[in-house]
């Protein structure tokens, strides 16, 4: 027991634990231990220094446990693979870690309908392997696929470069089952790709960081695996030329699946384009791209370049105390402006690597003193928000001196977002304080 924990709180917690054991079985209620290591300490560390880990086996069990916690005024941090528990602001309270690890079945792969229904705790890798048996895929390239789960990836709205062609999760999810803090289990959407019956709750909970309900199951539209794939890259002299080439590729009639620009410190920016097609289509398109990029020389670097985003995140984790990783959302035609502003702001204070997708969504990795990093990010964020763009900090230096809010200003719809939170989670049971505006 940590010092400062009130006896009343302990009593509530132990009553809850007892009841939870009868729901999920005694082995599935235990101290979170190392499972919690990635989660930043709640702001008020007086209560519940180590949350209780609970692993329900069914969505009914999950909903019951959630309801129980809600009734006992205990806060709940939903957990999938635990890869992104540090995303968002540190929660105000973290009493219970509600894990979907045992909710990991692929409920249905209707391969001839190109849809699949999956439980939240299924990892992306497990899903990929299963879908590939019928030559299909969830056309998404999120971070850490071997550990990241469907529920976690949805809640954090994590997508990579394939988004250019296939859209992000909002475009791939067609149905969802949610457990709400009051114990409600509700479905929305459906199992068909085209459906406008009722409000689009699958989109509402995508990227909601588990603050409205816990996703227990989701249905996705799938795509066929590509027949052939090839990556073509070229170097640009500077960010401006990189942007010019990227825009030229975007306004061409090429049907590429992904395009990105990598900015590695003190090196020339590199542009990568991914084609996925039949052999015949591929050859013709590669030839067209080469013409478009003339006189720049092109190379075929292989598929590893598409790990660039994940590598920035890994570099951030390797150097905990002096690194920050953030996502920048801007427009494709402003990428060079952003990179130049970053270079100006971080001069002599921080080093910066970045990768920008052709969609205008970029990941940056900064290295420097925590104070300096906070200063650079704040400066860039001001600049971006002024232009209706945004910067979200995902990885923050462990130092106490780094006080930057993860999300920045969510704009004039914040009261509406709070009203939604109030409707779904009136007691702020789920992830209290982790999301925008203190939600």
């Amino acid at each position, binding site marked *: 027991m940590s010092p400062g924990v009130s006896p009343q709180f302990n009593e509530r917690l132990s009553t809850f634990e007892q009841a939870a054991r009868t729901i999920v079985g005694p082995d599935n209620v235990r101290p979170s231990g190392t499972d919690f290591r990635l989660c930043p300490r709640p702001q008020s560390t007086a209560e519940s220094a180590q949350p209780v880990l609970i692993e329900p086996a069914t969505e009914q069990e999950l909903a019951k446990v959630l309801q129980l916690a809600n009734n006992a005024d205990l806060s709940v941090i939903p957990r999938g693979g635990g890869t992104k528990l540090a995303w968002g602001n540190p929660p105000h309270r973290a009493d219970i870690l509600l894990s979907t690890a045992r909710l990991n079945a692929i409920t249905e792969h209707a391969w001839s309908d190109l849809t699949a229904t999956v439980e939240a705790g299924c990892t992306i890798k497990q899903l990929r392997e299963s879908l590939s048996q019928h030559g299909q895929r969830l056309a998404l390239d999120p971070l850490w696929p071997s550990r990241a789960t469907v529920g976690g990836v949805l809640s954090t709205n994590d997508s990579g470069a394939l988004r250019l062609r296939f859209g992000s999760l909002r475009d791939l999810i067609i149905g969802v089952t949610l457990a709400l803090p009051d114990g409600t289990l509700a*479905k929305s959407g*459906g199992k068909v790709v085209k459906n406008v*019956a009722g409000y689009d709750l699958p989109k509402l909970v995508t990227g909601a960081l588990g603050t409205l309900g816990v996703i227990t199951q989701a249905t996705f539209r799938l795509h066929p695996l590509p027949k052939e794939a090839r990556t073509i890259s070229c170097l640009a002299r500077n960010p401006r030329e990189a942007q010019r080439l990227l825009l030229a590729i975007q*306004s061409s009639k090429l*049907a590429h699946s992904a395009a990105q620009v990598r900015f590695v410190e003190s090196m020339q920016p590199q542009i990568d384009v991914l084609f996925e097609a039949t052999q015949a289509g591929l050859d013709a398109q590669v030839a067209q791209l080469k013409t478009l990029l003339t006189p720049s020389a092109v190379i075929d670097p292989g598929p590893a370049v598409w790990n660039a985003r994940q590598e920035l995140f890994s570099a951030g984790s390797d150097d905990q105390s002096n690194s920050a990783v953030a996502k920048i959302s801007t427009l494709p035609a402003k990428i060079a402006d952003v990179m130049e502003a970053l270079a100006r702001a971080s001069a002599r204070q921080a080093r910066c690597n970045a990768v920008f997708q052709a969609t205008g969504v970029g990941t940056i990795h900064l290295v420097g003193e925590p104070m300096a990093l906070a200063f650079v990010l704040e400066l860039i964020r001001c600049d971006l928000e002024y232009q209706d763009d945004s910067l979200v900090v995902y990885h923050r230096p462990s130092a106490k001196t780094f006080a930057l809010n993860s999300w920045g200003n969510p704009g004039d719809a914040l009261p509406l977002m709070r009203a*939604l939170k109030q409707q779904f989670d009136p007691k702020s049971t789920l992830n209290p304080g982790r999301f925008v505006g203190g939600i």
Partner: protein
Amino acid sequence: MTVAFPSFDLPGTMGQASPSPPFSLEEHPPSRGKASVDARIVQELRAIVGARGLITSAEELHTYECDALTNFRVMPLGVLLPESTEQVQAIVRLCHRERTPFVARGSGTGLSGGALPVENGVVISLTRMNRILEIDLPNARVVAEPGVINLDITGRVSAQEYFYAPDPSSQSVCSIGGNVAENSGGAHCLKYGFTTTHVLGLEVVLPDGTLVHLGGKSLDAPGYDLAGVFVGSEGTLGIATKVILRIVKRPECVHTLIAAFPSTNEAGAAVSDIIAAGMLPAAIEMMDRLAIQAAEAAVHANYPDCGALLLVELDGPAAEVQFLMTHVNEICRNNGASEIRVAQSDVERALVWKGRKAAFAAMGRISPNYIVQDGVIPRTALPQVMSEIDRLSRESGVRVANVFHAGDGNLHPLVLYDRRIAGQEAAAEALSYQILEICIAAGGSITGEHGVGEDKKQAMSKMFSEPDLQTMHRVRCAFDPLQLSNPTKLFPTPRLCGEKPGKYEAHPLEIAGIAERF
């Protein structure tokens, strides 16, 4: 031509169920006690939109008493034609103050009664807010007001070889605002997605008159995806006054093939094989014999006379499309296609599409009245569902023509009847409802693109459980706690937005004085 559509309301509540309003917004309202209030409101409304922005005469109001689902009619108290966001805000604030419900309306082409006025309410028509505000080609964005016509977006960017992808059949007259409300689809959403795929941001007047910005020109604005929730909410969450759209570069080449099959079974098998082969065509459309005959009679598309016609459109890089088209050709032959034609020119392709897009209207050639249904099924359930529809049709003696987006399983059965023959309308409505039940039983949906609106709200409880609906209702309560924005639509039964029980907890921002609870 009179066109009738189905109703799932109890008999007696449907159709011309509009009693004369208890008070009127006309200049000299009948003295019923509320007259002075009325006159004051009229004056205030006129001050907002000007004399030519306010319609109160019964004669002119008739235009607005229904949308394209004409069997539901309600006379609104008045119609407002604002020209700016500020005017919309002022109107909505006034409605909020007076607790007067309002219904936003675009071009009125909706097929589910979404723009049907509500009793004692006003209609806010957005047709005068029809400017394209910004075209940003490098970033492929267009910012438009809600009254802009769908096809005009493409018209403005086609010289630069861009287009706006969602293409509902009514695209030459329907408005972007209406598309946003209904999350409109179209024939090409198989590959390109729906309205929601192409709406990146919205300026919205909330039901209390507050102006908010959801999403934006760049992706992933921090916070909940409220633009994603608003699109397809059928006017129940507020009024969009500005829409940020994504436009798409025209593909290098487009090939359209039509193949004649003995029946929908063979055509359906060909569709499955095309999908199984890993292709994602821009569109796959199917018509059965009755639909072909109607389309042929109406626009002379020169379709072959057959049991089922499949239209497959592939687009993309030329080499890829040519290669895949050969493959589609083979698949069709292997599944028993007797005749296959590839449209050789833009003119031929346009003609092929003209027949398909005119199919609904063409029903007038073979039936005085018809009901358009909009159910969705998993594509693989097609043969079973088609044979069930066929059986029901034979048993009831009600003819059904089938036109559908075969690629995504969105059926548009057209239930044909003659209102003048006693009992036919009721039989057609019964059959139409049975078709929806078949779709739900097959794991599908009651609506793929036309919306729930007034028409299918009772069927919502067939598709969703009470907890499902109650959860959706929470969204409604967050946006519109007084339920003034298009009330009575979408949900099967009236629901209140009650206070949620729960302990009050001061938010840190409240403590810090940054924010207030509301």
